[in-house]
């Protein structure tokens, strides 16, 4: 048993336990420093994982249950960065938690462990365990403000929908195990040609996809997202939007391209339809929203749709696009939610008018939120543009050979134009919304670090994609969606 492979997870678990214990002897006003310290350690871990990965080769632990490869490293660094920023954000927001803020930090760390395990899952069983660790901690995180009924409602909704999706998934895994006699991805890929003809196996796989569909909030499993996003405390929403969604996508990538790539190629129509429906649903429903968090909920649905574009292309380009988009999404959404946490920790509602006058009250907050909205809308020189470019390119590679993909691109363009309307609606209320309250907002050093990190991330990914792209290409090379598959797909489409 190779425990040394799990050093990142072990350290984060220990940090979580230490945080819980430290609650006993750390006085109330210093508890923020626990979050700041934990965020700093996570940052250091992310950097060390980033530089260690140069020598990493594929290694497994627990009889192949757990795999440590470039894909896992990429997503672990991703989750660690997300965790660090979310902790900084939580410290800003902690005023609204009352006395019990340390448990929130500890739960964020435990959810982070779940996400990191998900990045390394090479077996349906570890996948399920990791997802449950994430989901169970999020039941508490979403309903953390137990004196607010909206937060409790969000928690209950997430509990019910989460339990339902877990049920689907475990049923699907049972069917997979029953037909394939194994739950290991490395075993299944060896027999995928035979298994592709077994209806029960396919049904099981579909159920697993349903479970993952809930996690990434894709249509038709999206209905929980707006309510939960709106009701949860802002840092929990942010972690849900970035971490939980990325965990869903890394598992989706693993299942589709490390376990059953041949079957995935047959299902490209399914993913194309899901992508189109998700984009349209998210974009159209976001138009009338007045609550910023709810707006972000629908925007997160629409973004799941854009990410599915890359899956439906089922090519190496598509997979790389998915990872790049997620990386950009990390900085963009966390930047937006850091701003929202700071503003919403003062006011009670989360109406879009709460942003009015922000341009004068705090240029840094206004600038971050504007950049985040522009990045989500896919405007250069920001991360979101390059991500969308890669995703569109992966789909347009089939233009001319398939009307399906041309239609898909058309839907994506409509979605982008609609999204521009509601994202720029946020920008409008920042700069020319009217409000009597123009008092300047003072920012703590922790908040400034988080905001500047997000701005730097958005601009870096949008203007200098080379470095990140190199990591992504090596991470994507773990997955089996090489060119033969692409040509097979094109041949099939042409028929």
């Amino acid at each position, binding site marked *: 048993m190779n425990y040394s492979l799990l050093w990142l997870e072990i350290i984060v678990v220990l940090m979580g336990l230490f945080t819980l214990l430290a609650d006993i002897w750390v006085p109330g006003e210093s508890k923020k420093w626990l979050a700041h310290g934990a965020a700093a350690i996570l940052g250091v871990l992310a950097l060390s994982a980033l530089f260690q990965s140069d020598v990493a080769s594929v290694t497994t632990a627990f009889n192949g249950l757990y795999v440590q490869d470039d894909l896992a490293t990429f997503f672990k660094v991703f989750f660690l960065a997300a965790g660090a920023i979310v902790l900084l954000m939580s410290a800003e927001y902690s005023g609204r938690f009352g006395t019990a803020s340390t448990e929130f930090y500890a739960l964020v760390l435990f959810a982070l462990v779940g996400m990191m395990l998900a990045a390394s899952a090479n077996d349906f069983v570890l996948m399920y365990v990791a997802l449950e660790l994430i989901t169970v901690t999020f039941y508490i995180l979403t309903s953390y403000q137990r004196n607010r009924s909206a937060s409790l409602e969000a928690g209950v909704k997430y509990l019910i929908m989460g339990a339902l999706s877990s049920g689907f998934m475990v049923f699907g895994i049972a069917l997979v195990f029953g037909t394939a006699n194994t739950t290991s991805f490395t075993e299944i890929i060896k027999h995928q040609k035979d298994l592709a003809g077994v209806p029960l196996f396919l049904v099981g796989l579909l159920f697993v996809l349903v479970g993952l569909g809930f996690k990434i909030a894709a249509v038709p499993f999206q209905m929980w997202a707006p309510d939960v996003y709106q009701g949860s405390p802002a840092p929990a929403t942010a972690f849900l939007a970035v971490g939980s969604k990325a965990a869903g996508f890394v598992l989706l990538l693993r299942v589709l391209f490390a376990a059953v790539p041949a079957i995935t190629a047959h299902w490209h129509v399914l993913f194309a339809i899901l992508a189109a429906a998700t984009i349209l649903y998210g974009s159209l429903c976001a138009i009338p929203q007045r609550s910023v968090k709810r707006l972000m909920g629908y925007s997160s649905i629409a973004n799941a749709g854009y990410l599915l574009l890359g899956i439906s292309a089922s090519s190496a380009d598509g997979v790389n696009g998915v990872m790049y988009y997620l990386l950009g999404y990390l900085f963009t959404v966390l930047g937006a939610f850091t701003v929202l946490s700071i503003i919403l920790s003062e006011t009670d509602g989360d109406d879009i008018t709460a942003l009015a006058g922000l341009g004068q009250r705090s240029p840094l907050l206004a600038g971050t939120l504007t950049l985040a909205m522009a990045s989500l809308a896919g405007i250069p020189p920001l991360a979101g543009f390059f991500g969308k470019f890669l995703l569109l*390119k992966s789909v347009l590679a089939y233009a001319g050979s398939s009307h399906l993909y041309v239609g898909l691109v058309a839907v994506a363009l409509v979605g982008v134009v609609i999204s*521009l309307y509601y994202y720029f609606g946020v920008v409008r209320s920042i700069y020319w919304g009217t409000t009597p309250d123009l008092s300047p907002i003072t920012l703590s050093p922790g908040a400034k670090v988080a905001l500047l990190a997000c701005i730097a991330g958005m601009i870096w990914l949008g203007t200098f994609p080379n470095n990140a792209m190199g990591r992504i290409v090596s991470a994507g090379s773990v997955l089996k969606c090489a060119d033969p598959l692409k040509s097979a797909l094109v041949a099939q489409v042409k028929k």
Partner: protein
Amino acid sequence: MSLLNYIILTPIITALAILLIPANYQFVIRCAALLGSLITACFGLLAFFLFKAGLPGYQFESKIEWVKLGGININYHVGADGIAIGLIMAAAVVGFCAVAVSWKIEKQSKMFYILLLSMITGAVGAFASLDLFAFYFFNELALVPTFITIGVWGRGEDRSYAAFKITLYLTLGALVALVGLIVLYVKGGAQSLDIVDLHAAIAKTPLSPAAQAIIFPCLLFGFGTLVGLFPFHSWAPSGYGCAPSATAMMHAGILKKAGLFALLRVALPLMPEGVARWMPVLAILCVGNLLYCGFVAMRQRDLNLLIGNSSLAHMGFAFLGIASVSVIGITGTVLVMVAHAFLAALSFAISGWISQDTGTLDMGKLGGLLKRMPFIGSVMIICFLAGCGVPGFANFAGEVTVLFGAWKTFHWVVAAAAWGGLVIGGVYMLRAIRSVLHGELRSEWADAHDASSFWRQAPYAILVLALLVFGFVPNLLSDRVKPVAAEIVKQATLKAATPVAAATAKVAAQP
């Protein structure tokens, strides 16, 4: 480092420097912005006069690998040919004038100048780019500044609506064009959007007709929307009508030309079959610009809306020149583009002055202003006469050249429509002069101010001077443009069905 790098970097570095200046040091901020844009303008002029006309290929080239991984191949590649150099120069000069006329902006002036300088970077960068990805990148850089400047510093009750309209239209156009560019990337055979690589790859194996059938309309209508091609033009008058004068100057003058520039650089030379199929359509649509937008301009009561519509009518000439696919026509198009850059900037600078001083642009309420504003009034008369196509101004040179090109290619009806467009232009321009400047001076404007100091007059004088210089010596520009236009026409009219014929034609084309 090539000169173009300095032109692109100066405004963005100035913007970053302004970011570090505290917001209440308004005078310092304005001086920094003026200095940065003045240096850019000087570099632009220097590049224009150092450019050697008639040499093949691109000058001031500089290439840095940007992204090269995972099947993505993007370069930061700048360079100028005879078409680009005029536009780069115009962008730099108009950028300086736009900063210069914004002296009255005091509310959040730090943000205003940062946004304006990033618009200038976007404009010059787009014209200097030889990689289409970089072109798109720079072009879109101006989008968010456009939106925010219209919303915060714009005028009128409808500015929020106008800001959304202009942003959504421009994004839609840009996205449609982006699809065309991505398909070009995938099918072009170069696995790159570098214009030099693309030309080389397509000279070897021309794009298949099926690919051209997808790419060409995407580019035509995508980039066409960015220019305000009829019937996708309605964003322009309302957007410019509500924009602060600097934004309107940059947008109507410079950024709008990026669409035409891309059509000339990409769509025409790479896709001869697309040209053959779509240019007659373009010729009909541009009549819509010339006549319809002209008639709409005639009915306007608001000076800014009038100028906005008239600028669309002028774009009709530019499209007509492109549609003629002749050396004269395309040379004329570039002349119109550069002339209109100065003309539109000057018009919006004038209307900006009037609205700043009187608080209205309703032509029914204005009148007799020439008595109070001898300088601005005279400049307005000069500018509007130039807009009617009076000889001696740059617009005349461009429009008459386009007419020569169109006369040869099209049915006489099209040329007659263009001529009709000029007549309509004369009607509304002269009417505007009469209702704003002549007649009785109304009592409420009795203490209206003129631009009296040197610094206030300078931007207007520069723009008038530019119109006159290119009106009297159009050769300055046309000598630079003609060889490039000849090359474009040669490639656009290739009848090559087989790769071999295309290759030999290409070889024969090179001296």
